[in-house]
C-alpha cells in the first residue's frame, strides 16, 4: 500500500515535470538579409536597356512556340544594303538588318549567301568605326564557312554571341547611338518577318504574344526622335520615326488583332523598303 502511494506520488511529480516549460532552443544562426524590395519608381528610374530587346533568334523560337510552323529563314529577302554612305545612323540600322538576316539563316543558308550577309555586317561595323577586331572575327568565321570547317550549330552560338554580347560592348567611333540603332535594325527586320509569318498563317492570337513590345519601340524612338535631333533630316530616319511611333501605339494595346499585325508588317515594310 505504501509502495503504491509512493508510485502515485512519483508519477504525479513526473507529470508535473512534463508540464514545465520546454527547454529554450539554441538560437539559430542569423542568415544574412537579402536585398530589400525596390519600388517601381526606383526600378524605372535606374533601369538600363541593354537586355531589353529580344534577339531575332529568340523571336524565331517564340514564333515556333506559338505554333506557327513557318520558319523565318525562308522569308529573308536578298538585300543590297549600301554601307558607303555618309549617314552613320542609317549604316547602323542597315548593319542591324544584315545581322538579323545572318542570324535567321545561319542554319540553312548556302555558304555563299551566309558569307555575303556576314561581309555586309563587317562592312557596316567598319564604317561605324567598330575597330579591326570584329572584322577579323567575321573574316575568320567566313573562312571556316567557306572551308566547311565549322558546324552550323556552332555558328549559331558564335553569331548569337556576336549579336548579344560582343556588339553591345563595342565602343563605336560613330558614337553611343550606334549600338541601339543596330539593335533597332535587327528588331525591325525580326518584327517584319514575324508579322509576315503571322499574317501568312492567318493566326488571330499570335500577335499579342509575339509583337506586344511597347517598351522596345519606345526605347528606339527616343534615340531616333531625341538623340537624332539637330541632325540633317534623312528619309530613312523620318520613316523610322513614323513607324516606331505607330508600332508603339499598336503594341500598347492589351490585345493585338490580325489587322494590327498587318499594320506592323506594313509599317516595317515601309522602313525596310528605304534601306
Amino acid at each position, binding site marked *: 500500500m505504501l509502495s503504491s502511494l509512493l508510485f502515485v506520488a512519483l508519477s504525479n511529480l513526473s507529470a508535473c515535470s512534463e508540464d514545465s516549460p520546454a527547454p529554450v532552443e539554441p538560437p539559430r544562426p542569423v542568415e544574412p538579409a537579402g536585398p530589400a524590395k*525596390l519600388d517601381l519608381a526606383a526600378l524605372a528610374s*535606374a533601369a*538600363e536597356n541593354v537586355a531589353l530587346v529580344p534577339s531575332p533568334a529568340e523571336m524565331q523560337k517564340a514564333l515556333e512556340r506559338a505554333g506557327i510552323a513557318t520558319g523565318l529563314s525562308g522569308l529573308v529577302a536578298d538585300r543590297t544594303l549600301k554601307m558607303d554612305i555618309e549617314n552613320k545612323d542609317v549604316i547602323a540600322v542597315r548593319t542591324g538588318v544584315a545581322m538579323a538576316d545572318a542570324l535567321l539563316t545561319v542554319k540553312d543558308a548556302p555558304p555563299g549567301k551566309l558569307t555575303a550577309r556576314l561581309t555586309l555586317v563587317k562592312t557596316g561595323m567598319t564604317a561605324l568605326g567598330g575597330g579591326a577586331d570584329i572584322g577579323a572575327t567575321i573574316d575568320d568565321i567566313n573562312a571556316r564557312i567557306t572551308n566547311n570547317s565549322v558546324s552550323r550549330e556552332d555558328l*549559331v552560338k558564335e553569331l*548569337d554571341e556576336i549579336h*548579344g554580347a560582343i556588339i553591345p560592348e563595342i565602343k563605336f567611333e560613330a558614337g553611343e547611338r550606334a549600338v541601339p540603332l543596330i539593335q533597332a535594325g535587327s528588331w525591325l527586320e525580326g518584327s517584319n518577318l514575324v508579322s509576315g509569318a503571322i499574317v501568312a498563317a492567318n493566326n488571330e492570337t499570335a500577335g499579342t504574344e509575339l509583337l506586344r513590345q511597347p517598351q522596345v519601340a519606345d526605347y528606339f524612338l527616343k534615340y531616333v526622335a531625341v538623340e537624332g535631333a539637330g541632325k540633317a533630316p534623312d528619309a530613312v530616319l523620318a520613316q523610322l520615326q513614323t513607324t516606331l511611333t505607330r508600332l508603339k501605339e499598336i503594341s500598347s494595346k492589351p490585345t493585338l488583332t490580325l489587322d494590327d499585325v498587318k499594320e506592323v508588317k506594313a509599317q516595317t515594310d515601309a522602313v525596310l523598303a528605304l534601306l
Partner: protein
Amino acid sequence: MISSLLFAALALVSPALADEASAETCLKTKIWEGYNSGWAVRTATNATLGQGEHRIYLVTLYAGTEYKIMVCGDDSAVNADIVLYDSLGNEIGRDSTQDRDPVLLYKSGATDTFYIAVHATATKDGTAKAGLATAVTYK
C-alpha cells in the same frame, strides 16, 4: 577553340575592368555550357558594384519561353542576388542562394516587360568593389 576565339575577340573589342574579367570569364563558360542543353544568349553585360549596390535591367520576356538569368561574381563578391519584378513593380522571383553565382529561372504567362535587379549583397570585407557579369539566356 571557338569559345577561346570569342573570348579573345571580346577582350580585344571591350577591355573589361580588372575586377570584372574573372566574372566575365565565368559567365562566358556558363553561357557556352548552356548551349549544350538548349539555352541561347540574348544579352551578356557586366558591372562593378560596391556592397549594397545594385544594377537594374529592363527586359522583354516572351510568353511561354523559358528564361535563365545568370550572374557570375569575381573574387571580391561574397553574395550576389537576383530579384525579378513585373512591369508594375511586383516582386515575382528571387534566387535563394547565398553565393556569388546566383541563377533565376522564369517562364512568363504573357509577353511583357520585366525588371531584373542584380545586387551585390555582400562583398569581401564589406568594402571591396565586386565585378558582376549578368546574362539573360532563353530556350
